[in-house]
C-alpha cells in the first residue's frame, strides 16, 4: 500500500484534522448507544493496529498536525452542548495526542492501553447520554439542568465519569498526560506547554458540561433514577479504571 494512503488511513483512525471529521460525522449519525460505544473503543485501536503494522517513514509535519488537531478540538469542545458530540470531540483531542508516544516508539500494549484509557470513560458517558435521551428526549446541556436534584444518583455517576474523562487523578489519562509532559518538557518545552493548555481546556469543557446538566432547580416531572444494579456497574468500571490508573502510573512514570 502506498505510504500516502497509509498516512491517510492512520489520519482517519488516529484522528488528524481534517480527516478527524470522518469519525465525528460517523459518531454523530449513529443513534444506538452500544454502537457508539463500540465505535469509541475500536476506532483508535484500528488506527494503532495499522500504524504498528506499517513501515512508513512518518513525515515531519505529522506531529505538529497532531498537536494542532488536539488543540483545535480541545478549544471547540468548550462550546459544545450535545453530550455525544462532546464525547467525540474529547476522544479526537486525546487520540490526536497518541501520535506523540507513537513517534517515541512506545510499546504496542501500552499504546493500546493509552487508547482504551480515554475510550472507557467516554463509553460510560455515551451510555449516560442515552439515559438522558430516554428521560428528556435529548442529551443537551443547559436545556433542562437541575439533574442533581431530579436524579441525584445519575448525576453523581455523571460527574465522576466526566471527571475521569478530563484526565483527573487517579484515572489513567491523568498519568498518561503527566508522562507526555515529562517526555517532552526538556527537548520540546513548547510541546509540553501545548499539552498542558489542551489539558486545561478539557477541564474547562468538563466543568461547563457538568454545570450545564446538574445545576439548577429540580424538575417538577418525576424521573426514574439509576437503580442499584446500574450504580454497581458504573462504580465497578470506574473503580477498575482508577486502579488501572494507579497501576499504569507505576509502569510509565
Amino acid at each position, binding site marked *: 500500500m502506498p505510504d500516502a494512503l497509509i498516512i491517510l488511513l492512520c489520519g482517519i483512525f488516529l484522528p488528524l484534522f481534517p480527516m478527524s471529521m470522518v469519525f465525528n460525522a460517523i459518531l454523530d449519525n449513529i443513534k444506538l448507544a452500544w454502537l457508539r460505544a463500540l465505535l469509541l473503543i475500536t476506532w483508535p485501536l484500528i488506527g494503532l493496529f495499522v500504524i504498528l503494522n506499517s513501515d512508513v517513514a512518518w513525515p515531519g509535519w505529522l506531529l505538529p498536525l497532531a498537536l494542532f488537531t488536539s488543540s483545535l478540538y480541545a478549544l471547540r469542545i468548550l462550546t*459544545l452542548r450535545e453530550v455525544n458530540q462532546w464525547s467525540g470531540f474529547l476522544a479526537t483531542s486525546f487520540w490526536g495526542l497518541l501520535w506523540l508516544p507513537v513517534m517515541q516508539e512506545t510499546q504496542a500494549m501500552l499504546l493500546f492501553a493509552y487508547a482504551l484509557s480515554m475510550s472507557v470513560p467516554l463509553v460510560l458517558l455515551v451510555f449516560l447520554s442515552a439515559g438522558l435521551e430516554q428521560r428528556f428526549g435529548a442529551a443537551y446541556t443547559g436545556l433542562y439542568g437541575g439533574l442533581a436534584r431530579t436524579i441525584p444518583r445519575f448525576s453523581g455517576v455523571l460527574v465522576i465519569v466526566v471527571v475521569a474523562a478530563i484526565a483527573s487523578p487517579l484515572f489513567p489519562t491523568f498519568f498518561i498526560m503527566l508522562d507526555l509532559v515529562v517526555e517532552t518538557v526538556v527537548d520540546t518545552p513548547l510541546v509540553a506547554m501545548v499539552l498542558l493548555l489542551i489539558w486545561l481546556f478539557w477541564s474547562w469543557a468538563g466543568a461547563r458540561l457538568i454545570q450545564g446538566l446538574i445545576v439548577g432547580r429540580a424538575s417538577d416531572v418525576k424521573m426514574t433514577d439509576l437503580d442499584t444494579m446500574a450504580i454497581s456497574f458504573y462504580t465497578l468500571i470506574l473503580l477498575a479504571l482508577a486502579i488501572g490508573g494507579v497501576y499504569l502510573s507505576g509502569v510509565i512514570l
Partner: protein
Amino acid sequence: MEQFIIVVAVLPLISALLIQLFSGRFGRGIARVSVAATVISFLVSCFLLSWALGGNDPQAIQIGNTSTILLFDPLSSLLATIILGISLIVHLYSIRYMAEEAAYGQFFVLLDLMTAALLFMVIAGDLITLIIAWYLVGVFLYFLLGQDTRSQTAYRFAFWTLITYRIGDIPLILAAALLYSAYDTWSLTIIFDEIMANPYAHEFIGLPLTEVVAALIGLAAFARSAQFLLHTWLPYTMDGPTPVSALMHAGIVNAGGFLINRFAPVFVHSGDVLNVIFIVGLITAVFGSMLMLTQNDIKKALGYSTMGQMGFMIMECGIGAFSLAIYHLFAHGVFKGTMFLSAGSVINSARKDDGIPKDELYTFAVEKRPNKERQPWILMAAITLAVPLAILIFSHLLIAQDYFQKQGAIILLFFGWVTGAQLIFATYRMRTQNIWRLVGLSVLSLVIVVLGYAVISHAFDLFLYPDPAFRVQLYSAASIDLLYFNVLVVIVALIIVAGWLITYYAEHNDYRRRQQRQRLWLNFYALISREFYISDIYTRLTRSLLSISGQLNIWLRWL
C-alpha cells in the same frame, strides 16, 4: 510510628467511603463517623507533632513498591495538625449548619476527601503524590463550593476557582517534570539532597534549573494563594456554604505558603526569584488591603482581607522569612476561620442589639468624629515615630543579637514600625478625655503583640529550620545589594515620614484643599470600586475565546 503516620492520612478517606456506603441507612447520624475519624486523626497528628517537637529525625515512608512516599518532617507534622484542627472545627460546625441540606451525606464525603487531599498534599514526599493532591484540592473545592446545586451563581464562581487552580497546576507539573528529567527520581528528599550538594548541576533553556523550578513553583503558589492578577476567584466565592468558606480562607488558600516552604532547598539557590516573590506579595498585600477597605459587602471585604493577608504571607517568603510565613498562615487561619464561623451568630445578635458601646472608639471609628483638641503635633509626631521603632528593636534584640544583619528582618521591622506608628497616629486623632492613657494602652498592646510575634516566629524558625546555616542562607538568598537596600530603606522611610508629617500638619492647621482632593479621590474610588477592571478584562477574554470556539464549530459544521 509508621502506622500512626498512615492512620492520619488514611482515616479521612475511610470515613468518606463509609459515609458514601452507609449514608442511606443511617441518615444524618452518619456525620458522627466523619467527626470521629477527624478527631482520631487530629489526636494522632498532635502526637506526631509532639514527637517532631522532641527533635526526632524526619520519617519518610515508601508505600509498597510504588513511588509514593509519605514524609513526616517538622513542616508536614505542623501543617497536618493545623489542617486537622481547622477541619475538625468545620466538621463540628457543619453538623447543625448543614442539617437542612438535601445532600448532607455528600457534603461530609466531600469534606473528608478535601481533608485527605490537604493532608496528602502536606505529607507528600514525592512529586507525583504532591501533584495528585494539589490537583484534587482544586476539584474537591469546586464541588464543595457548588454544594448548593440550585445556585448558578455558586457554580459560576466555583468554576472561577477551579480554572485558576488548574492554571496554577500547569507550572507545578512543569516544575515536577523538569526535576524528574534532571534527577531521575520523584522523591523530594533525594532531589533536595542533590540540589543542596550541587545546586547548579543542571540547566534549562540556558538558565540554572533551580531558578526555573523556583519560578514555576512561585507561579503555582501565586494561583493557589490568590496573588494579584490570579486573585479574582477569592472574593467572589462566598456563595458556597459558610463552613466551606471558613475551610477555604483558613486552610486551602494558604497552600501557596506551604509549597514555597516545601521547596525551600530550591529557593535558597534562587535569590532573584525570591525578590520577584517579594514584589508580587507586596503588590497583593497593598491591593488586597485597598480593595478590602472599599467594599460595602462584608463577605467580599473578608475575601479581600484574605487576599491582603496572603500577600503578606508570600512577601514574608520573598524576604527569606519562610517559617514566619507558616506562622502567619496558622495565625491567619485561626483568625479568619473564627470570623467566618461566627459571622452568622454575630449578624443574628446584631439584629437584636448592635452591642456597640457609644464610647470614644465608637465616635472615632463609626461616627468619624476625630478629636478637635490636639496635643502639640511635634511632640506627638516624635512619639509616633520613635516609640514603635524602639519597641521593635528591643524586642528583637531579646530574640537574636544578629537579627539586624538580615535584610529580610529589617523589612519586617519596617512594616512593624509603619503599623505601630499608624496605630499611635490614629490614637492621636481620637476623641478622648485622657490622651496619655490611650497612648499608653496602645503602646502596651503593641509591646505585647510585637514581643509575642517575635518570640513565636523565632520558635517556628527553630522548629521548621533547625539548621542555623540554612536559615542564614535563606535570608541571604533573598538579600539584594547592600547599597541599593540602604538607599531604598532611606527613601521609603523618608516618604512615609514626610507623609505623616504633612498629615499631622494638615490636621493641626485644618488646612485642606477640599475640592481638588475630592475629585482625585472620586476618580480613584471609581477605579477601586470596579476592582481595577481585572474581572471585567478576564470576562471579556473568556467570552472572546468562547466566541472563537463557537465560530470554529459553525465553520466546521460541528464535525
